[in-house]
């Protein structure tokens, strides 16, 4: 007797993803779709696509979506959530969108305790525009705008976004996860589920930072990229729960 052991989540549409082969955006999309389905909130969710490689993510998530100006996803999500408080609202942003141009919107959404879930894909580079230096680019990492490698003297140190957000009193849950092997993918899914569950329980602002890969702009094969994520990125961006105020509210 045949048995279905795996099927695509209803949380995603059938549209073919626009991401480059080997990039981890697809895994994050799948996890979000699965969580929306498992929590039975697909038909009460509104997502916000940002500017960057995920600009077209509104094609992929099978719920209502808005596309925001560069960096403004958390402000747009604030407007949505305040107007539709019973909906589940999430943003999907890159490290350039959230950590650079949109840092003010993100920090203040957290500081107001906006009851939204922010999904941050940190791949240490501007992917969509062709591989420029991001606020999260590692020291020595070569990009099209740091061709000799990122220099601390010239560019400062890479921003540790989860650590920054953990300082904000109204941030309810902040965790950094990775996708470099199946075990970590499962861990990442648990983190994501917790964040969305906290939102459903109206606990406030939640953010999951995914260490993500960009094989094309890193100049690596997908496997090399996963290895670099594991060895170089996680060394500077340690994984773990940076903030969990869940208990305080119970």
């Amino acid at each position, binding site marked *: 007797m045949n048995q279905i052991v795996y099927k695509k989540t209803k949380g995603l549409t059938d549209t073919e993803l626009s991401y480059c082969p080997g990039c981890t955006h697809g895994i994050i999309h799948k996890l979000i779709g699965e969580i929306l389905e498992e929590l039975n909130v697909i038909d009460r969710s509104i997502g916000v696509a940002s500017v960057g490689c995920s600009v077209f993510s509104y094609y992929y998530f099978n719920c209502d979506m808005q596309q925001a100006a560069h960096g403004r996803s958390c402000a747009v999500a604030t*407007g949505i959530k305040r107007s539709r408080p019973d909906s589940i609202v999430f943003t999907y942003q890159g490290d350039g969108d959230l950590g650079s141009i949109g840092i003010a919107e993100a920090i203040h959404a957290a500081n107001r305790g906006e009851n939204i879930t922010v999904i941050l894909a940190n791949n240490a580079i501007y992917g969509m525009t062709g591989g420029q230096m991001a606020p999260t680019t590692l020291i020595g990492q070569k990009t099209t705008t740091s061709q000799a490698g990122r220099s601390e003297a010239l560019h400062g140190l890479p921003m540790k976004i989860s650590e920054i957000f953990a300082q904000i009193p109204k941030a309810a849950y902040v965790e950094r996860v990775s996708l470099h092997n199946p075990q970590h993918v499962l861990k990442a899914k648990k983190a994501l589920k917790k964040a969305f569950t906290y939102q459903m329980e109206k606990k406030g602002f939640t953010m999951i930072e995914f260490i993500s890969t960009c094989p094309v702009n890193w100049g690596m094969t997908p496997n090399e990229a996963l290895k670099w994520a594991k060895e170089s990125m996680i060394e500077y961006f340690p994984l773990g729960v940076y903030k969990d105020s869940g208990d305080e509210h119970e």
Partner: protein
Amino acid sequence: MGKVLMKGNEAIALAAVKGGCDAFFGYPITPQNEIPEFLSKYMNEHGKVFVQAESEVAAINMVYGAAGSGVRAMTSSSSPGIALKQEGISYIAAAELPCLIVNVMRGGPGLGGIQPSQADYKQITRGGGNGDYQVIAFAPENLQETVDVVKESFEIADFYRNPVMIAVDGLIGQMMEPVDLDRPIRKRNLEEKKWATTGQSTGENRRIVTSIHLDPYDLERHSMKLFAKYQKIKENEQRYELINMKDAQFIIVAYGSMSRICRSSIELLSEQGIKVGMIRPITIWPYPKKAFDEIPASVKGILCAELSTGQMIDDVLISNNGRWKVNFFGRTGGVLPEPEEIVEAIKKMMGEV
């Protein structure tokens, strides 16, 4: 309710609520602060949304999110703050979201000053953001008219799925006048917002609010659709007042506080036997071009009067289309002219025609 004596900004805030405003997002800037101050209390007490944003940029993007979710959303600001909102206004127009933006104009450029000014005419009517888009813009001259157009603005915004701006100069925001907040407004035949992301749809029915069209042919189609809408607005929504047009020798074109001053100038001129009429634009986009077809044959010239170094004059020249001599009078930086200064400008023109 009858007439009550109210300060301009507070009357604007209350009128917005009476017009159906569900959500306000703003950031402090003089001379419009009484609007968010009033609404911070009112909206919270009435179970509506008020958020003091971290910046004008954030505020206009909150409006995008709220308007995109189908509620009646607004923001208010003043000239430099409106400059910061321009990116968001372009996105809102591109995504065809209805909203209200109140602009209590002050002097510029740069940080400028906080006195009344009309030096943002081009910013408003030419679009300070990128791309082919337009904002429907009203420039009322007194509080009653301001209150009426603020109340009507959500009807117009919803009808055309386009942002509406109420552009008053700081004088109107700060002064007190008696207003009737319960005058009926023209209701439009509005459809249900089937495009709004309410978070209740999946699959083929799901709703998407976006402004990106990477395929040039797709973007051209979208831009032409917007253009057709703007043409319809130009045809149907021009608003203006004609004053003293019969047998006029000269016509003044002025709006907002400037038109109030010009009313006094017209009286002074009349006492001296000089007949002067006025075209008073109430919408500055669409520009009331039709008014220029109502200028009588007795007219020898047109004086465009503004609180700027000359911005609306471009539209006056376009609308005039070479038919009459056009002169300009302006004070700027927040300086208001005496009525006599406009009298002198008309007399100077008499010697030239």
